[in-house]
Each structure stands twice: as C-alpha cells, then as structure tokens.
C-alpha cells in the first residue's frame, strides 16, 4: 500500500525548480499536511496514553487487576484465536481456486468475497440476530435445544468472522495471480502431489502476503466494535470484548480504565503497522 518508500523524491531529481514560488508551494503543502495529520491523527493517538496514565502508573496497573477487564482481554484473544485461522484457511482456499484456475463467473465470486467490506458492521451483526436471535429463523429451534448463539460466544465469533472474512483472501488472490503457476506446474509434472506442492512450493512463495493478511485480519478481529456490539448483549465478565469493555468504562466516566484498555489496542495497532512496514520492506507490495 505504501508507495512513496522506494522512489526518490521528485524535487531532488529536478534541477532549476528551486525558485521562490516552488519553495512557497512546497512549504504550504507540507505544513497543511502535517497540521491536518497532527489534529486528526496524532492528537487522538497521544490522548490515549496521556489519559491512560493521567493518575499515574499505579492507577493504570490497577485497571488490569479488575477481573472484568481480564475477562474482556481473554474473550478478545479467544475470538481472534478462532476467527483468524478459519479465515486464513478460507483465504488460502479462495486464492487457490481463483488465482490458479480460469472459470466462468470468477469476477462475481471475487466481488462477493469483498462484499462484507461494503456492509456496515451494525448490519453485519444484525444479520446473525435475524438468523439466530429469539425471533430469528432458527430462534425457536435453538431455544428448544438449549443452544445460545446470540448474546453468547458463538455469536461474537460469527459476527467477527463476517467482518474480517475478506482480509486474507484479498491479499492472497492478487499476489498468487501475479506470481503465476510455473513452479506449481513443474512440481506436479515431476510427480509431486497436490498437498506437497501447496506446502513446499506455493506457501513459501506467498508467505509474506499471508502474514500481512493475517495481521490485518487479527487487528480488525480484536478491534471490531459495531458488529460485536449488536450480538454480544454486553454481559460484564462474560460477553464483553475489549472494545465493548472500553465503551462501558467510558460511559461510567472511568476514563483511566477506558483509556488503559484502549492503550493495549493502540499498541496492537502500532504493532500491526510495524509488521506491515517490515513486510513491505521484504519486497512484497500490497495493492
């Protein structure tokens, strides 16, 4: 995604343009950009940590001694631990079918895979309420059999799976397509089986794209708010994920608590960006 990194900046290459007018335009563009980014990006980012440590390190540490906070962190980790592998298997499968073969209706399939990105998270959560909620399609059947999905762990996982559904596939499809089939065809022709070819040829080829997709999927899975908020029921210590716990603490005016939990998710975001930058440096380029 980052495109400015490896290209030398143009004004170093073009002599004779260092007139006063260019200097003013340059100064104007840089200062407008920096001011805008400082106001909407850096100030909120700094606020998270300033507010989290507003009453000192001890108050910050006390937040994580609260059992409800610990439960929220555990639930978020558990959800990501299920959702990311499932969507990774799906992404690999979709990329193999779409990038390695030519078939009718391929573009329709690609569009449908991207569909969850165009749908409001709230609507995503609602879809599962309509299916599994008390008045939903399977509501009565589920009640009779004592299975709870909505306001319980399965609903949270389903909603998270829906919103993070395209992330791995989106990274892998263009990458596999671009890298071509030559090595795989050679391996198969020489007698290697399908699985061996996949694990020994394809997977090493696309590993950085895969890592990138999984990291993005994980960040979204851990940070998802709207979709999970609809299906969770907000039961403290039970169905509260970290983002939902932040909302509850914030609405109780427990700002240190809210921003302390937020600071963990912010660190996760920074880590995600770090991995992204590293992966791009290996030569793999996002689209």
């Amino acid at each position, binding site marked *: *995604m*980052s*495109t*400015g990194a490896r*290209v030398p900046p*143009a004004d170093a*290459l073009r002599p004779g343009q260092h007139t006063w*007018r260019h200097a003013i*335009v340059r100064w104007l*563009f*840089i200062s*407008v*950009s920096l001011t*805008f*980014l400082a106001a*909407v*990006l850096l*100030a*909120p*980012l700094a606020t*998270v940590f300033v*507010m989290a440590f507003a009453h000192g390190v001890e108050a910050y540490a006390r937040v994580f001694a609260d059992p409800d906070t610990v439960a929220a962190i555990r639930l978020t980790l558990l959800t990501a631990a299920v959702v990311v592998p499932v969507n990774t298997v*799906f992404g690999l*499968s*979709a990329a193999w*079918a779409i990038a*390695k*073969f*030519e*078939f009718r209706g391929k573009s329709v*399939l690609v569009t449908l895979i991207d*569909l969850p990105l*165009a749908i*409001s*998270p*709230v*609507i995503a959560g609602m*879809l599962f*309420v*309509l*299916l599994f909620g*008390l*008045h*939903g399609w399977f509501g009565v059947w589920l009640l009779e059999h004592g299975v709870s999905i909505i306001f319980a762990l399965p609903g949270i996982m389903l909603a998270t799976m*829906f919103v993070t*559904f395209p992330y791995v596939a989106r990274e892998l499809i263009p990458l596999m397509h671009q890298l071509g089939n030559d090595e*795989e*065809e050679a391996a198969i022709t020489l007698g290697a089986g*399908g699985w061996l070819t996949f694990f020994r040829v394809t997977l090493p080829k696309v590993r950085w794209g895969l890592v990138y997709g999984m990291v993005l999927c994980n*960040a979204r899975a*851990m*940070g998802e*708010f*709207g979709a999970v908020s609809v299906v969770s029921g907000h039961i403290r210590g039970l169905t509260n994920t970290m*983002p*939902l716990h932040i909302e509850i603490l914030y609405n109780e005016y427990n700002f240190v608590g809210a921003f302390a939990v*937020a600071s963990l998710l912010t660190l996760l*975001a920074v880590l*995600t*960006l770090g991995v992204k930058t590293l992966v791009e440096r290996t030569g793999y380029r996002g689209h």
Partner: protein
Amino acid sequence: MSFRQASVLPGFGLTFGFTTFFLSAMVLLPLAAMVLAAGSMHWHEFVHVVFSTRALDSYRLSFGASFLAAAINLVFGFIIAWTLVRYEFPGRKLIDALIDMPFAMPTAVSGIALTTVFAQSGWIGRFLEPLGIKVAYTWLGVTLALTLISMPFTVRAVQPALLEVQHDLEDAAETLGAGRFYVFRRIILPTVLPALLTGFTLSFARAVGEYGSVIFIAGNLPMKTEITPLLIVIHLEQFDYQGAAALGFVMLVMSFTVLFAINLLQAWGRRRQLRAANS
C-alpha cells in the same frame, strides 16, 4: 466454452467447493435472511419505518456527513499524497507509515480519543470553544470522525497515480511558459482524477456504515445527531427485528446506488479521456 479451462494443477474441486460453501454460509445466507425479513413486512409497515421523520433525519446525517467527509478527504488526501510523493522532509517515511493508522486502530478507540481531544476542555476543543465552534456532540463531530476513519483511502489511492504523472510533460509545459495552475489542470488532474474518484467512493462507502467511532462523539440525539446504524441498533434493542432489517435494507440499497453512480461516472470519464486522446 466449458465452465473452466483445463489445467494440470489439482485441487480445483476442493478449493472451489469449500470457497463457495463457506461464502454462502457466512455471507449470502445471512444477507438473504435480511432481505426476507424486510420483505415479509406489510408494505405500509415498511414505509412507516423507512420514511419516519426520525429515519429520514438519520439518513440526512449519515449520508450528508459521509459525503462531506469524503469531500474533505478529496482535498486533504490529495495534499497529503502530493506531499508524501513529491517532497523530501524529515519524518516523511514515518508519516507515510502512520497514514494507515485509522485502519489499524479499533473504531471505539478512535471514537473516545477524538471526543476527548475535541470536547470543550480538550486539547483542540478548548481553542474552538471561544470561537463558538462546537465539534463534540454535534454533526461537525460526526463529520470529523468519518473524515478520520476514511482518510487513508484517498491518500493510498492517489499516491500511485501521482507517481505516474510524467515529469517531462510538466517540465516541457513549464518551459513553454505554462503556469503552475495550467499544468495542474491539464496534466496532473487528468492523471489522478480516476484515483481521486476511487478514493472518494471508498471513503464514502466506509463512512456511511461506520458506527464505533461516531457514537462516542455524536451525542446521539434523535433527529439531530443520530446516524442510521445507531437507529438500527435501537430497533434491535427493542426486538423490532423487521424494522431493523428494513432500515438495513434501505441503507444497503442507497449505498450501492451511490457506488454504482460513481462507477458510471468513472466509466464515462475514461471514455471521454480515450476520445480526447484519439482525436
């Protein structure tokens, strides 16, 4: 032509089958549930929910603020992309990496942080307050949150397009006496216009559905600062599933219409450019 072309590679049946099955179960079946729930309503019930004053006000805010946010990003996204592509300054690479922050940051965190910064006593809010500008808990705050979360789309769309602008054309034009603005209008703008439109579309689509960052800064007053996704949540909390499905259905139809219109506009622009290049 058969369904698929022959290939020596194995695994098409397995992967295609799993992909379509999982897609149907996770995405298509739930969407069908929504369309059916909305469709099973009586016509006048549907109209009553979808065209109530409260719903209409929420569309105005959701779509209006999203449009405004996408427009703001059109301007600032272009300026930021230009700065990152054309100029060298200390911290450029760091800023380039930070652009994606709104994508990586959970929306609830962006929401509470923005609200704190722009509240009356906040770092920026305290300077706007004496000027009579209230951001937090007004439509301005909604627009601000939507601007932040959709900002990377325009920057990332425009950056590669700006790299494609041919410097020799610009230099030639300037040597021949063209002004900076003329060069911008005739050489730079046509090259980046499709990318700008793409960025606008993506920003808008993301902003319309946004929930997490907005509800903290909006204040959520019915008819004033209540976005459509929040209205859906309110219907769901009252166990009015059909009403929620109807609103969700309207939202999807409206956003797909806007996306479709912008795609048409883009196709028209491409054709016009081709004609201009051929004549």
